[in-house]
């Protein structure tokens, strides 16, 4: 009914290897893009952008980054918050040092700086595996946050120890600072989100992605058949940190505007992004988006229902939210360890055969 695949023939390798081989999926993808680029910017308001769209896009970038490291390469990282902080502070230093350069370039460069730091903290992964590595990445988390708190150079010796984004532009349109339009910030983040999504998707199905997955599935076996673990692990750390750095830069410069590092990029942030990819689906691009959307929407919905409909005080709703998120994670792990992405796949397979299943 929904999928009409009859007559959808592939006549070249390019056709066969495209991201969405089924015509219906491909058109849906174009439709989503069209809505996101053409319709949403005209209707987006401050509340919609700040409460839902910006956090969703930015967290989706972070989730894609972590998913590359954890979902595709199998290296569990609890240092995402720390790497996001690197991106934010690199962006801040660049913004203040080179005010006339386009914000676009600053964000990319901030990602690059984070990639270097990521490789540095990824080096121990060659010796340390599994839980030990997960705990070792905590060293990055705590050390980086401490560093940005204690070394005044990073926050330009400001009295409060905070960093706040000055106004910077892309093609003459302000995307950071207090005088931004909702549509401008939204489009800025959307472009980055789409870009990282495309790059990540194509990296993961190329040579690099396959070496990552080989390392994930069994590192010793992969090494024996000729995958270079040094290269695979370090590239995973680099690419992952690059994306996480971009999301950190956007989170600080575009979304929040001012940041106190311990509060915003603490260990909670690392867990939040980790939950996104668990609930969304490890090793799945769609899962990164779905998980980010889910965990961004959940607090908003809970707050609407809890505070506005049921009339609970906000602190009780906050506690309930912890309980619900915690149990959701457990439920997901028990019922569907592959997350929302797998649920979606199952649904899609059913829809392809509906209404005449075998």
């Amino acid at each position, binding site marked *: 009914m929904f999928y009409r695949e009859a007559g959808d023939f592939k006549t070249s390798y390019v056709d066969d290897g495209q991201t969405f081989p089924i015509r219906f999926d491909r058109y849906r993808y174009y439709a989503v893009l069209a809505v996101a680029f053409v319709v949403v910017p005209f209707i987006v308001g401050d509340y919609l952008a700040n409460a839902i769209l910006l956090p969703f896009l930015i967290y989706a970038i972070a989730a894609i980054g972590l998913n590359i490291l954890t979902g595709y390469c199998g290296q*569990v990282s609890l240092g995402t918050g720390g790497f996001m902080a690197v991106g934010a502070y690199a962006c801040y230093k660049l913004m203040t040092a080179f005010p006339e350069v386009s914000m676009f370039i600053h964000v990319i460069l901030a990602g690059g700086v984070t990639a270097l730091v990521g490789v540095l903290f990824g080096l*121990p992964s060659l*010796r*340390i*595996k*599994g*839980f*030990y590595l*997960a*705990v*070792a990445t*905590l*060293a990055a988390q*705590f*050390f980086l*946050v*401490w560093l940005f*708190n*204690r*070394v005044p150079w990073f926050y330009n010796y400001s009295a409060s120890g905070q960093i706040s984004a000055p106004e910077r532009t892309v093609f003459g349109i302000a995307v950071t600072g207090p005088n931004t339009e909702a549509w401008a910030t939204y489009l800025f983040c959307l472009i980055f989100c789409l870009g990282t999504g495309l790059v990540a998707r194509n990296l993961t199905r190329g040579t690099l992605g396959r070496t990552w997955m080989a390392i994930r599935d*069994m590192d*010793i*076996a992969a090494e*024996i058949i000729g995958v270079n673990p040094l290269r695979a692990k370090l590239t995973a750390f680099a690419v992952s940190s690059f994306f996480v750095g971009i999301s950190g830069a956007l989170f600080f410069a575009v979304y929040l505007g001012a940041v106190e590092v311990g509060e915003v990029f603490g*260990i909670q942030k690392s*867990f939040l992004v*980790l*939950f996104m990819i*668990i609930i969304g689906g490890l090793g799945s691009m769609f899962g990164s988006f779905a998980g980010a959307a889910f965990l961004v929407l959940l607090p908003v919905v809970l707050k609407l229902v809890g505070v506005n409909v049921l*009339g*609970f*005080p906000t*602190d*009780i709703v906050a*506690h*309930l*939210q*912890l*309980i*619900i*998120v*915690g*149990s*959701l*994670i*457990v439920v997901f*792990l*028990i019922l569907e*360890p592959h997350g929302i992405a797998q649920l979606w796949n199952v649904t899609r397979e059913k829809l392809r055969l509906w209404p005449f299943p075998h």
Partner: protein
Amino acid sequence: MPEQLVFAMEVTLNGLMAGVLYALVALGFVLIFKASGIFNFAQGVMALFAAMTLVGIMDGQVPFSHLINATFGTDIHHFGWHVPALLAIILTTGVMVGLAWCVQQFVMRHLVNQAPIILFMATIGLAYFLEGLSDLMWGSEIKNLDVGLPQGINIWIDEATFNIFGYGFFIDNLDIVATVIAALLVVSLMAFSQYTKEGRAMRAVADDHQAALSVGISLNFIWVLVWSLAGFVALVAGIMWGTKSGVQFSLSLIALKALPVLMLGGFTSIPGAIVGGLIIGVGEQLFEFAIGAPYFGGATQNWFAYVLALVFLVFRPQGLFGERIIERV
């Protein structure tokens, strides 16, 4: 004797005491990890939950009173009685056993045979759940916990060291009590696992699940037992930390501090947890005293333990006392 050296000695002693508390939390991790291969991230939150429950029972708080008040518009908060500390501890132990049963029944039983990392993430979910639950049950304000443990400076040590070095060491009585209790706990746990039927069964399960199952040991029972033991250890740790710095959310963060302790000592070794705890406790205090505070602006305790563990692991990936990791294709 030079002044710096005397200061360093005091710092070392205090570090040892702090290390004992880290070791206490790490012990709970090791117990569960050995018996079921689950890396229980929720251990710290269990300590928080246990301490909260203890305070709640002692003060006669009504559980979920905030929620009840918000739902029905009532205004209840206390039953109006005070439970003696010992009875409250026994009751809280009961609650922790109940919790262990629930965890086993509703979570871990359904996750048997899953990859270790999935189990780990499930315990992170459990940690969130427990954190929300304990706040919802007992309220999130900072509470005082007083079960009658002695506190304050130990006069005897102060005087004795003053007579020897001309400078009195500041050692908290509570830390000394904590050390004694931790030592007792370790000895009794060792005795339990060596000399009782259940303890031996526990070690058998730790050694090989399937072999243990085939000689008629109930895995279900052992796992409930292990989680209960871990809950009890969490309660002890919660009492110590709660008395020291109040029962509040930061209590659950000590779990994070216990992680480098575990890495250093190895996940599977009880003596490793103790030694690792002491090394981390002393190491971070001395580092802060000698290098961190004078050169780096202080607060290096936040990360020193992790970096130490990280560097250490690069040279010895299985930790100090961990079993040698043998990998096969």
